[in-house]
């Protein structure tokens, strides 16, 4: 089967075949890997590739397409889609927008908002202060742009992943 795996915005084509149960041939970037794969318990893998042993932790999103992977202290966020489905999805999907959604990294209380709608912001600029876990935490812009909609309100609690505001492309 052929998959398209997206890693940091880069798409990679990967082909997988089963040789025996637990043993797979994988084609990636012009190379062929023979992978001895063992799922010790759900989402905890032991991989042996060319003698090297790897302990790999995986988390799969409910949709089954987003994978969080941890290997020896490094974390990867990957999207995996079957090639055929990907092609189909492309036809249907709209062009990606350049806007940046700022979401709450945790539940807490918005205690101060430092920007207004329409205001231009720089990367790293503090947009608002979130109080959580007994501390004041700065929410910063990650890209330059202009504040679009501002959903957060001072003194109003937010949950993890709530939309706080949108930074629209500056032009």
């Amino acid at each position, binding site marked *: 089967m052929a998959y398209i795996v997206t890693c940091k915005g880069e798409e*990679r084509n990967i082909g997988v075949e089963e040789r025996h149960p637990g043993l797979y041939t994988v084609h*990636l970037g012009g190379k062929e890997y023979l992978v001895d794969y063992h799922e010790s318990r759900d989402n905890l893998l032991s991989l042996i590739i060319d003698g090297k042993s790897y302990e790999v932790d995986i988390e799969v999103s409910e949709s089954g397409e987003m994978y969080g992977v941890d290997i020896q202290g*490094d974390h990867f966020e990957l999207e*995996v889609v079957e090639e055929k489905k990907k092609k189909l999805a492309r036809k249907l999907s709209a062009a990606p927008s350049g806007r940046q959604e700022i979401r709450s990294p945790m*539940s807490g209380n918005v205690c101060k908002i430092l920007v207004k709608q329409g205001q231009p912001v720089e990367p790293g600029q503090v947009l608002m202060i979130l109080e959580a876990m007994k501390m004041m935490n700065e929410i910063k812009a990650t890209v330059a742009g202009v504040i679009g909609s501002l959903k957060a309100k001072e003194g109003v609690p937010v949950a993890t992943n709530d939309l706080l505001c949108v930074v629209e492309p500056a032009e």
Partner: protein
Amino acid sequence: MPADKLFNKVLIANRGEIAVRIIRACQELQIPTVAVYSEADRASLHVRVADEAYCIGPAPASRSYLRTDTIIEVAKRSGCDAVHPGYGFLSETAAFAELCAAEGITFIGPNPDAIRTMGDKVAARRVAAAQDVPLVPGMLEELKDDGAARQVADTIGYPLMVKAVHGFGGKGMRVVERPEDLARLVRAARSESFNCFGSRAVYLERCIESPRHIEIQIFGDKQGHVVHFMERECSIQHRRQKVIEEAPSTIVDEELRGKLGEAALRIARAVGYDSAGTAEFLVNAATKEFFFLEMNTRLAVEHPVTEAVTGTDLCKEMIRAAAGLPLCFQQQDISFRGHAIECHIHAEDPDHDFFPIAGRIAGLRTPGGPGVRDDSGMYEGLEVPPYYDPHLAKLVVWASTRERCISRTRRALSEYFVKGIKTTIPFCERVMQNEHFIAGDYDTTFIDSRFVKEDAAREKPHQEVALLAVAIKAFRSDQSQTRKSAAISDTTLQAESGWKMSGRIKR
């Protein structure tokens, strides 16, 4: 097994890892335990491991863990004759210790007078001064007004610190670099202090630049004996919160150890100290000058470091002392063996300025093997609530030398895995690789000055393995889906059996 039953039952007025630590000590002393919990902490580990557990109110600490009336009521109702406050919350509230005494319940900690005196930072400085212990230069009374501030500041010199008289935990503090900022920053410190501690009182002291933070563990009983357990080095700090500690300190030699120990004992004796406590000092690594900073009148967060190198169970000794038993050790019995390092595992994202993270611990593997101690409030499945300190666990590692201890800590951290939320584990790993830390050459400015924040764009050597892993995982999932789909048709019965399967317990 202990011939003497110390207490009938102990209530632990705390949560998380320190509550679990105290419950373990009680279990080893065969004393039944009572846990209390807020509505947000029903799933907390300390609730499950205690013998009894009672809900004491809603999530905010002011409505649960700080409610002295509710806690005393639970203690009385459940037949407790002692309360252990842990650290934080009510541990340094003299009024709570007094309330316990009035209700005939032993407060496992020092006497209320010692708590009150040391809780007033200016009073504590006066005690130290009276004992000829060197102080950080500065005021011995609280600051009156802005006019006085200008005058005192000129005497002390810049940079200087504005500090809350009743503050702790790094709150109500400001560094003043220039005279023109003084009035504004005094106002800021007063306002933060009022918000946090209900008092506007502040004082000024010199800002010691790039100091080492060294503290002395002291221990007293109700018979008037006081000993010290030597030092801990706590200079790896972020936002004045300790992140990594070790003992012994790389800059403390026998002479300095003796001086610091003696200074700490003089202060402790002056207030009739009768439990576990910590005298904090700032030390100049080059000149070995030291300055008393403040005293914490409770079991220290980092007490396991001292336990590891001295072989003493401070938490258990504290319970014994509270029961009126005399110390079972004298100063000459106390010595270091080997080296210990403690890493705080916090629910924080070290790559994003230690941003606290709440969430669910979806997976957990803790390290094992020789010299590794895991003091934790975590378990797989725990929802970390957003209402309290981000403190999840402490990893305490012992080895025969500092070099081996660093290697072992690195090994242990590499085995420690928390899935679902970000923690300070990767940060601690980087500290263990840092050449300045390895050389023992660091101070309280370490994280800002000598520590390279992770390069998010760095090479991740195992990216290909990650790609291979997810591709095979997806393949296997698709294969098993296909097999299942082939096996079903669209009758109601089978739809139901499909549901049954999803409800079935995974083994």
